[in-house]
């Protein structure tokens, strides 16, 4: 992490890091998942699910409920996906 600057850091100019990126997840007839980008291009087929976990948070404000899974795509690429359980939408995010 870079620290420096001494210039006043204006909190109104904070930008989020690691925001969830929308992706598509399709299931074929045999139940295998295929991950695609929002522009329609395919990222890859899911070969294995390494781990899955659920996050429920901020029920007092605007409920957040996510089902995360760490997957391995064809070719060995590792990826973290989650499904927003309130909207059903899929996202990719760094863990």
């Amino acid at each position: 992490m870079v620290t420096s600057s001494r210039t006043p850091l204006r909190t109104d100019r904070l930008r989020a890091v690691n925001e969830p990126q929308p992706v598509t997840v399709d299931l074929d007839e045999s139940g295998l998942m295929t991950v695609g980008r929002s522009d329609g291009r395919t990222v890859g087929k899911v070969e294995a699910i390494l781990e899955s976990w659920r996050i429920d948070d901020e029920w007092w404000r605007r409920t957040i409920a996510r089902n995360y899974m760490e997957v391995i795509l064809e070719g060995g690429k590792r990826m973290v996906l989650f499904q927003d359980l309130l909207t059903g939408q899929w996202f990719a995010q760094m863990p």
Partner: protein
Amino acid sequence: MWIPLFPLRCEEARHEGLAAYPTALLAPDTTRKLWQISPLARHAGVKPGMTVSQAIGLCPTLRLIEPDPVHYDERFAHLLSALNEVSPVVEPGDLGLVYVGCDGLEGIYGGPEKVVEAIRRTSHAARVGLGLGKFTAWVAASRSKPGEAVIVQRGTEAKFLAAQPISALPLDADTHRRLRQLGIRTLGALAALPEEAVTAQFGAMGRRLWRLAAGRIAEPVAGRSAPEPIVAALTFFAPVGERELLAHALDQLIARALKHPRRIGWRVHAVRLRADLEGSSSWLAAILLRDPTADAGRIAAPLKTRLEQSPPTGAVERLVLEFTAFAPGTSELQLFARDAQAAARAGQQRALQSAAREIRMRVKRSPLYHIVEVQPWSRLPERRYALIDYEP
């Protein structure tokens, strides 16, 4: 003389308009916590030691500043130099706190008010206290308003101190709590107790506190006099006219003068380079370094420029270098400079700042961002960190 929140004041001085906003300085050792808080931020509930996210939660318009210890040290060194013009006896305390020996100054300036006026002219934001001994003077300064002074007349120290809160004493939190539990809220209340009883209860430290509260201790200001000029000279076998040779000789003289034992602990502020020329004429360059330094290159640079721009009019028989004025070395200054690691960190920050400025000049915009921790404990990854424009 006391300038509370000195680092924050330094930042306000170099960022115009900053004083109008709630501001917080990040801690020098960890950028996750706040160190110094402006009064506006304090009013919004922000406190030193809070994490960035806690502070932003309380005060969304808060402006965060990363610390620049080297800059604060430089500003403090300038302040000490300015005070040295008023009195030869100057003792630095914590950053922003300076004790000035005033004995004999009344003969130069006039009464105590005139002495205080001369001290106040060195900094408009300073609070000044005049009294017998460092503790009385410090308490007086802490009771004055910015840009004003409190003068404790001789013989009235005990009366003045009696009305002050015990927080004026150099207490640890535990002793402060114990004194308050005993119902002691002022220095007068503490001084009213028998000295032996306070010593029995609080040990040697209690005795010292009692004596301070009673005005029995008047510690003098322990200043130190600047060293005599340091001279290094070189006589050439044959008169020299080549500038390269002169520049080389200058480097040797600077290195020799810097090694002089009297220079240790001092940074060079003023330099003179004299040349005895063939035919009984001479040449002189006198340089006042804007930032006092002990770095050979920074001392040599302005002298070499002078050698280039207005060289000696004849061949040089003898070259003499003099360090004529000094500023206290960083080693005796502040908590930051005493910490070599912090000083190194500050140096790295400066290098980074310079590189960022160059990138911005080349690409006409700043593609650099700075990562700050917002809620590092959050279960939601996007809440943990945030980016902010890196603007040196």
